[in-house]
């Protein structure tokens, strides 16, 4: 899960990383109060869990009350990469000399934590030049490595000390919270040569959540996603009109790809998981029935451990209880698929021998 900037900064503050004064709010009345406390000028920053906020107009300078009344709602109403504002952060304006880049991430291919640093920050990581990359194993960053990184960035004096110090704090935070990525971009050099984190990105390893109750308050899940997690399947909401249901993340992704290739628009990704039961699949269908945009359901099952009959039974129950009144297009293969097909004969489920046929029918079917 990616935290919002102000949440990442709460963690930065806890670990002693220098920050500008800032306050977050969720409505304009609250915001006005904060504006008074903070004092102009400041920056209005949209809080969304994705990058590219500046380009999309989600970060605006603000000089006075009149500007505030116009810009606060403007920023609040933005939608960036499909993400609506969760909050607005007001942050003091900084007089800076230079922008640096600093991050520690979990290096998937090298299987260890890795530092990326650069004296040319403030742009997206893909465009950061002269990257200094250091693999640091599984432990904290030593003084030696921290100083070495600052030196390689061409820094001296207070600034070098500040960067080394920030790097050590950042590594402590990363390791203690088991983050996948913690990034400060930009880390600014101020007029007095000290450094401050102007932005913050923090991605957690959700599988380690059971050891981190302190991070649970940042969890943001829709009711539907929560229910999915509880029932043991995984669901990603998408904005199309055909719900895609299958077993196994790879197979469901593959089905999304083929559906999109054929002009269909997926409404969700739903993997019923390896431990699917009739009850959990029924639960999944209940969730789908609550998504208004869904006009059809595409089912792609390769029965292995999960028997296709288990899934067929859930569908029959859903039809019986009038849970589903939209067309269902399915391709069933693997364990007990012949029996499953027999069970579904004459029901609302349209059955196909190949996934390609099922997809074509689904795309045509929802157009009606």
């Amino acid at each position, binding site marked *: 899960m*990616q935290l919002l900037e102000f949440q990442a900064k709460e963690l930065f503050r806890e670990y002693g990383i220098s920050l500008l004064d800032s306050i977050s709010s969720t409505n304009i009345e609250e915001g006005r109060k904060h504006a008074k406390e903070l004092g102009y000028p400041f920056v209005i920053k949209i809080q969304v*869990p*994705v*990058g590219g906020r500046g380009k999309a107009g989600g970060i605006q300078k603000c000089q006075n009350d009149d500007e505030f009344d116009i810009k606060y709602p403007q920023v609040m109403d933005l939608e960036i*990469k*499909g993400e609506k504002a969760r909050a607005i952060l007001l942050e003091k304006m900084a007089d800076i000399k230079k922008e640096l880049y600093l991050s520690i991430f*979990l290096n*998937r*291919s090298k*299987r*260890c934590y890795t530092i990326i640093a650069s004296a040319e920050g403030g742009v*997206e*990581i*893909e465009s950061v030049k002269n990257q200094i990359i250091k693999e640091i194993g*599984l432990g904290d960053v030593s003084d030696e490595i921290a100083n070495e990184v600052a030196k390689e960035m061409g820094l001296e004096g207070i600034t070098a000390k500040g960067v080394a110090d920030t790097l050590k704090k950042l590594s402590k935070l990363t390791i203690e919270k*088991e983050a*996948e*990525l913690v990034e400060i971009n930009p880390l600014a050099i101020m007029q007095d040569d000290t450094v401050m984190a102007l932005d913050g990105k923090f991605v957690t*390893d*959700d*599988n*380690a959540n*059971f*050891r981190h109750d302190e991070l649970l308050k940042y969890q943001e899940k829709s009711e539907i996603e929560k229910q999915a997690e509880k029932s043991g399947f*995984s669901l*990603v909401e*998408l904005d199309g009109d055909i719900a895609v249901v*299958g*077993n*196994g*993340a*790879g*197979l*469901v*992704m*593959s089905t*999304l*790809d*083929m*559906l*999109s*290739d054929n002009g269909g628009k*997926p409404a969700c*990704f739903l*993997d019923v998981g*390896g*431990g699917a039961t009739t009850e959990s699949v029924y639960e999944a269908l209940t969730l789908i029935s609550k998504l208004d945009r869904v006009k059809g359901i595409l089912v792609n099952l*390769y*029965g*292995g*451990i999960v028997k296709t009959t288990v899934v067929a039974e859930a569908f029959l129950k859903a039809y019986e209880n009038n849970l589903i009144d939209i067309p269902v297009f399915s391709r069933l*293969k*693997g*364990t007990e698929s012949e029996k499953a097909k027999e069970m579904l004969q004459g029901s609302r489920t349209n059955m196909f021998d*190949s*996934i*390609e046929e099922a997809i074509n029918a689904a795309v045509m079917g929802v157009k009606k």
Partner: protein
Amino acid sequence: MTNIFELLKGNPEDSDYEKKGVIVQGITGSYGSIHAKQMIAYGTNVVAGVTPGKGGQKFEETVPIYNTMQEAVDETNAKISIIYVPAKFFLSAAKDALNSGIKLLVAIPEHVPIRDTMEALQLAKEKGAVIIGPNTPGIMIPELIKIGIMPPMPFKAGKIAVLSKSGTLLYEISDALTNAGFGQSITIGIGGDPVNGTRLIDAFEMVKDIPDLEGLVIVGEIGGDSEEMLAQKIIDSGFNKPSVAYIAGRAAPKEKRMGHAGAIVMGTYGSAESKVSMFNKANIPVAKRPAEVPVLLAGKMEK
């Protein structure tokens, strides 16, 4: 490099040639017991189970259960184990196995914290052991040994090696291969996690020198850069057996985790385009649909 076939089959002079013992950790759990039974039914020589507190009992009236891996290994001399415990307990089970002399560890659980995987890997490296997974369907030599959760129907003995991040896509694509007359010499599930005990390049090292290997199928998905690394490795090594790839997740939105913890695109890192273009560079065609894999493979073989 580990000789995976020696681990899985042994040498012809061994008394247990092609009957290598496997220990099941978590054999009395609901998941572990189902799969232990299915592994036995497939012909895998399950020699012991481990469940703390249940030592002395027998599984299915035949397989002895021990409290610790050390006891199980001392009694059976097995070098292979498979873990079915819940993710939270994976690290301690893995340490128990590696410290007891296990050389091939198949890690089934999904949702293992990455840090635990990395710690287990560090220990495996010290001990000269291999970890497959976590979050893997397992590893198998069709019609000989199955260490994992895969259903038997899609697989048939043959001469194609299949490496896959995904479980169900491994079944789906192996099924398509089998139907087209391409049996499999070995199938290795890499796992859908961000950090894999055996990466695609490691799995490639394991299979590339199989003497009668006739082809290689790589089933990847969005996230990370193991496909790119593998493509580069194939270019560098001059490997020239017919190879075909498939990449799932082309239509997935960025910055969203698609079911697997590892299936996430960050910026351009982990994108399907990046993987496809690297495979193209390596002269490996990438199928658009699972069903296209055997067609492309047959095409490669004609050339």
